[in-house]
C-alpha cells in the first residue's frame, strides 16, 4: 500500500535564491528572488505527494531542484540516505536514472526535430548500460504500448500527435530508465478536461505497475486530491500546510489553504447558494521582497502583530496534537484553526 514503505527521498531545508544582478560585464548582486525558502518533506516508495500552489509560489523550482536541473542555494536532498545536491559526473548520472521528470507543456517538452522513437530511445543512448543496443527498438515499442500509443508510430514526429498523446510520449521517456521517482510538474494542466482524465488514469495505472513514487505538482486542487496520498500547500517559497489529502481538504487549518479551497469553483450549481467563499484581497507579493514573518500575512484576515515578527514553523499545533485525533497535521500558522463547516 502507498505510504507504508521507507522514505526514499528526504528533503531538508531546501533553499533556492536566484540572484538579481545589475551591470553587463561586471555583475553586481542587488538582491535575490526567494523562489524556495526552506522546504522539507519525505517521499516514501510508491506514494504520491501532491504539491499545490499558485503561480510563482516556487513549486516548479522545487521540481527542478529534485531532478537536479538546478542546484540549491542550501539544504539537502537525500536519496536513500545520500545527499545528491553536491553530486556530479558519474555519480549524478547514476542517481538521475532513478529520478525522472514529466514536464508541463507537451508542445515544448519534445524535440520537434526528433522522431518519437529517437525521443523515447534517447535515455538508452545516454545510459547504454540499461539496454543493449539490439534491444532498444523493442523496448521503445514496448514503452509506446505501455502508455497507450500505437507502437507502429515510432517514426513519426511530435507535431503529428495531439497534446494528450504528446504527454504520453513524455511519460514514456520518463519511464524508459525504470526510475523509482517521477517528478511531474503540472503534467495535465495544458490538456483538455476529457484528455486530462485519461492521462491521470494512465499515471495511476503506471504507478501500480512500476511501483513509482510521484511528486505531483499542480495548481488544480481537485486533480491533486484525486491522485495524492499526501498533499503540501505552498505559498511564496514555503509550505503553508502539509498532511494527508483528507487532512488538508477536510480539516484545513491554515488561512491560505482555506481561502484556496473555498475559491475553487465547484462543478455543481446547487453549491452556489451555500458557498461560503473567502475572497482574498490583493495579489501575491513579489518573491524578491517577501514579507517578514509569515509570508501570507499581507493578505490574511487573521494577521496580528506577531505574524510580522515571527516566522511560523510548519508543525502540528499543540491543541491539535492533544485533541485532534487522526485529523492532526502540520500547519505553518500561529493561529491555525479549522473553519466552522457550512452545514
Amino acid at each position, binding site marked *: 500500500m502507498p505510504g507504508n514503505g521507507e522514505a526514499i527521498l528526504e528533503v531538508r531545508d531546501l533553499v533556492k535564491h536566484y540572484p538579481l544582478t545589475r551591470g553587463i560585464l561586471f555583475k553586481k548582486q542587488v538582491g535575490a528572488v526567494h523562489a524556495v525558502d526552506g522546504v522539507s518533506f519525505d517521499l516514501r516508495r510508491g506514494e504520491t505527494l501532491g504539491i499545490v500552489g*499558485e*503561480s510563482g509560489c516556487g513549486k516548479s523550482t522545487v521540481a527542478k531542484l529534485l531532478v537536479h536541473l538546478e542546484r540549491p542555494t542550501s539544504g539537502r536532498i537525500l536519496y536513500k540516505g545520500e545527499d545528491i545536491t553536491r553530486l556530479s559526473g558519474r555519480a549524478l548520472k547514476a542517481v538521475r536514472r532513478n529520478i525522472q521528470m514529466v514536464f508541463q507543456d507537451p508542445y515544448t517538452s519534445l524535440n520537434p526535430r526528433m522522431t518519437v522513437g529517437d525521443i523515447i530511445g534517447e535515455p538508452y543512448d545516454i545510459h547504454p548500460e540499461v539496454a543493449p543496443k539490439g534491444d532498444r527498438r523493442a523496448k521503445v515499442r514496448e514503452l509506446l504500448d505501455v502508455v497507450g500509443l500505437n507502437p507502429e508510430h515510432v517514426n513519426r514526429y511530435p507535431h503529428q500527435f*495531439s497534446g*494528450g*498523446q504528446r504527454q504520453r510520449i513524455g511519460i514514456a521517456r520518463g519511464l524508459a530508465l525504470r526510475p523509482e521517482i517521477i517528478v511531474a510538474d503540472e503534467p495535465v494542466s495544458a490538456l*483538455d*478536461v*476529457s*484528455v*486530462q*482524465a*485519461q492521462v*491521470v*488514469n494512465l499515471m*495511476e495505472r503506471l504507478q501500480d505497475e512500476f511501483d513509482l513514487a510521484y511528486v505531483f505538482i499542480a*495548481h488544480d*486542487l*481537485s*486533480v491533486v*486530491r*484525486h*491522485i495524492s496520498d499526501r498533499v503540501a500547500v505552498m505559498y511564496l517559497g514555503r509550505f503553508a500546510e502539509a498532511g494527508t*489529502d483528507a487532512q488538508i481538504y477536510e480539516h484545513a487549518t491554515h488561512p491560505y489553504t482555506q*481561502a*484556496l479551497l*473555498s*475559491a*475553487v*469553483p*465547484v*462543478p*455543481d*450549481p*446547487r*453549491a*452556489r447558494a451555500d458557498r461560503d*467563499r473567502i*475572497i*482574498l*484581497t*490583493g*495579489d*501575491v507579493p513579489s518573491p524578491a521582497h517577501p514579507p517578514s514573518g509569515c509570508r501570507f500575512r499581507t493578505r490574511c484576515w487573521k494577521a496580528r502583530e506577531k505574524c510580522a515578527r515571527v516566522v511560523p514553523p510548519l508543525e502540528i499545533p499543540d491543541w491539535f496534537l492533544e485533541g485532534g485525533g487522526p485529523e492532526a497535521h502540520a500547519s505553518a500558522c500561529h493561529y491555525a484553526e479549522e473553519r466552522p463547516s457550512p452545514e
Partner: protein
Amino acid sequence: MTQPEAVAPLLDVRDLHVEFRTRDGVAKAVNGVSYSVRAGETLAVLGESGSGKSVTAQAVMGILDSPPGYVTGGEVLFRGEDLLTMGGERRRRLRGAKISMIFQDALSALNPVMSVGAQLGEMFSVHDGMTRQDSRAKAVQMMERVRIPAAKERAGDYPHQFSGGMRQRIMIAMALALEPDLVIADEPTTALDVTVQAQVMDLLAELRREYRMGLILITHDLGVVADVADRIAVMYAGRIVETAPVHELYAAPAHPYTAGLLGSIPRLDHKGKELHAIKGLPPSLTDIPAGCPFNPRCPRARAVCRTDRPPLFDVAPGRASACHFWKETLDDAG
C-alpha cells in the same frame, strides 16, 4: 422592436457556419450553431479546444481572422438586425459601444505603450466625443468601479506594471466602459490563479447584474460555469450538442458527451478509482465523422449514430440534446 425585452433575445445566432481554408483542407470549425442570449442573462458556451466555441464568438464580434476563416452561412441578429450583412462602419460602431469582448490574455489585448488611463479614456473620447479632461476623469471612475486600489495614482501606469488579476480588471473596465448591452467573455479567468479568478468572476457577475447586460461566457471550466451561468450550450466539433438551464444540465445531462465531461472531473467519491475518461480524441475538423460527430467516442453509439446526424431534439422546455438516445442518457443520469 415593440416586443417586450424579456421575450426578444438580445443576440440571436442562427445556423452559423464558419470554415478555415488551410493547406491541409477545409476545416469546418462551426457547423450550424444557433443560440440566443436575453438581456440580463448569462449564457455559458462550454467546450474543449477545437469545439468552435471561440470561433463562434469571433464571428459574432466580426473579428475572425480572414483569411483563413470565413463565415459561410447563417445570421447573427443583434436586436433583430443582422450583423453579418450590415455595413462595416455601422458594425464597427456597435462593437465596443453595444457589444464588447473580454479576452483571455489581457497583456496582449492592451496596448503596451499607452497608459491604462489613456486607453480607457480613449473609449469615451472616441465614442462619446468627450473632452480629454472629462474622459480621463471617467477613466479613473471606471478603474474605481472595477476596484483597482489607488485608481487615480495608477491611471498613468502601463499595462505591464499591473498584476494579471489587475490587468483583467482593466480589460473588464474597458469592455464595460460604454455600458454595452452584451459582453462576450472568452476564457476571462483561465490565465489567472484560483484565488484571483474568484475575485474577477465575482466582479464580473456583480457588474453584469448592475448593468443588466447579457453575458456570453466562453469557457472549458465546468466549475466556473456552475458558479455563474444561467444557461449552458455545450459544443463539440463545431456543433451545439446540448443546451439546458444550468441546474438541469448538472443534475442530469442529456447528451453522452456532457455526461462524459462531468464524469472526467475528479470528485471526492472517485478517490482511488479510475476517472471516467472519455476514450479517444476529438475529431479532426477537416474530417468530421459521418452521422453523429461524437459516435467514435460514445459508449452509447449504435448503427444509427454512424449514419444519421442527430438534430437537436427538444428534451424538455428550454432543453435540447443532439443525441438519438437522449432519453436513455437522461434516464441513466437521473
